């Protein structure tokens, strides 16, 4: 059953930069270059360049594209203006998550969608299976695109050295299409998964290496580092962003995950609406909470959450916050449990959870 691992167009670039490459979601990806903590801090203080070409892309176009996406997604798609983007969940009928996505509106009847690597094939099959009577086509563009994320307070300065696009005019969750480092037809979007300012750049796969090399060359003198998936995870958790398979999944709905703001119950009917409406009005048996620990031990995924001697949940994600310099995490916990009573047992040491409101770092 084991499929061969895929490589992004930047594989040789990673190896040349001394990355440690590991399997992730069917891809050989860099987990770190110089070190997770150093890379994390570079993104918070200067800038980091991530290869996220493992992420999938799909294009949805046709007369009914907006109505079709409104039927599939929890957030409202028909009100997105061309040139802007919106975060959304795509749900199952029971309210569990198929995936979380960013949908870009290219024009009135054309949308571009960023999919999680591990879900890309499932998502595209799901969308195609729900076309029904809609006048729309769903095109798999995963292999056509590479994706770079340039994140951090100096990201805009660095990118401005590589493009004539008016970056200042791109507001958060907006995008422009243009030339970056000599490569035309790049989608430059002011979005990200770190909690720091920055851009995500979708570019033709064949040009990925030359663009990445140019950005590193331009940014290195002011502190840009290549950043791997290790720091991508610690950054997103510090920012309180969900990761599919952790805070959201086929078993954990957006309502449970605290993502109710992405669920527009008052728009036209959509897959999962009835279940999510019920969860919203009646509450859910369990919900996602964030926490810090006053200890050095990290509570990792799967660690049981205790209230007294009773197991009332489990850790979904855990890491050390390099900025707070203490362990942070998320957990799925029974809604009836007293938040003040929660603790984890890590190798025989009982540590109380301190419930926190994400983002951990503003």
């Amino acid at each position: 059953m084991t499929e061969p691992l895929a490589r992004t167009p930047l594989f040789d670039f990673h190896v040349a930069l001394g990355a440690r490459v590991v399997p992730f979601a069917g891809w050989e990806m860099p987990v770190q270059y110089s070190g997770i903590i150093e890379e994390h801090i570079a993104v918070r203080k200067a800038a980091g360049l991530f290869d996220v070409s493992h992420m999938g892309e799909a294009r949805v176009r046709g007369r009914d594209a907006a109505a079709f996406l409104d039927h599939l997604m929890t957030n409202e798609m028909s009100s997105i203006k061309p040139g802007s983007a919106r975060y959304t969940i795509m749900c199952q009928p029971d309210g569990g998550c198929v995936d979380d996505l960013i949908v870009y509106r290219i024009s009135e009847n054309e949308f571009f969608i960023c999919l999680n690597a591990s879900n890309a094939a499932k998502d595209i099959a799901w969308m195609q299976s729900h076309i029904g009577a809609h006048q729309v086509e769903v095109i798999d563009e995963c292999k056509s695109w590479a994706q770079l994320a340039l994140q951090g307070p100096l990201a805009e300065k660095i990118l401005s050295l590589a493009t004539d696009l008016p970056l200042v005019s791109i507001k958060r969750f907006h995008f422009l299409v243009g030339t970056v480092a000599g490569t035309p037809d790049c989608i430059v979007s002011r979005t990200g998964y770190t909690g720091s300012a920055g851009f995500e750049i979708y570019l033709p796969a064949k040009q990925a290496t030359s663009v990445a090399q140019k950005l590193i060359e331009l940014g290195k003198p002011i502190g840009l580092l290549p950043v791997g998936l290790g720091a991508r995870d610690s950054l997103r958790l510090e920012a309180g962003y969900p990761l599919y398979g952790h805070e959201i999944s086929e078993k954990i709905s957006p309502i449970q995950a605290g993502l109710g703001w992405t669920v527009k119950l008052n728009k036209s009917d959509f897959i999962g609406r009835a279940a999510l409406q019920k969860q919203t009005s009646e509450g859910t048996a369990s919900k996602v909470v964030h926490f810090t620990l006053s200890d050095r031990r990290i509570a990792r995924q799967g660690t049981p959450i205790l209230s007294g001697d009773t197991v009332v949940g489990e850790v979904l994600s855990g890491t050390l916050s390099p900025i707070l310099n203490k362990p942070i995490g998320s957990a799925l916990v029974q809604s009836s449990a007293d938040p003040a009573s929660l603790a984890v047992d890590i190798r025989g040491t009982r540590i109380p959870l301190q419930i926190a409101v994400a983002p951990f770092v503003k």
Partner: protein
Amino acid sequence: MSQVPADLRYTKDHEWIRQEADGTATVGITDHAQAALGDVTFVDLPKVGKSFNAGDVFGTVESVKAASDLYCPVAGEIVAVNTGLNDAPDLVNREPYAGAWMIRIKLKNSADFAQLLDANAYQLTL
């Protein structure tokens, strides 16, 4: 290439051990191990006076990505632990063979030492 000092002994689990003049031995983890772990954030060490058999878990080293058990290379009693690692766990990354020693152990059988891998043998496992 990771460093493998010639004057130490090793386990296949990537601990190093150095025989001291007073009959004790000092234990830490190798350069290869620290590089594989990445940024070390915490080292959980046993209390002085505790005894272990060879191969027992004597502690845990945590990095951002994972927690890994530490295995006692020889049987004996803990006579000292490096409390400096509480405040500076990153010493494991910076000085795996010096500042980041972890435990000092009084060997039950000094002959056990000869059973451990020498530098050449350990190098071959990498």
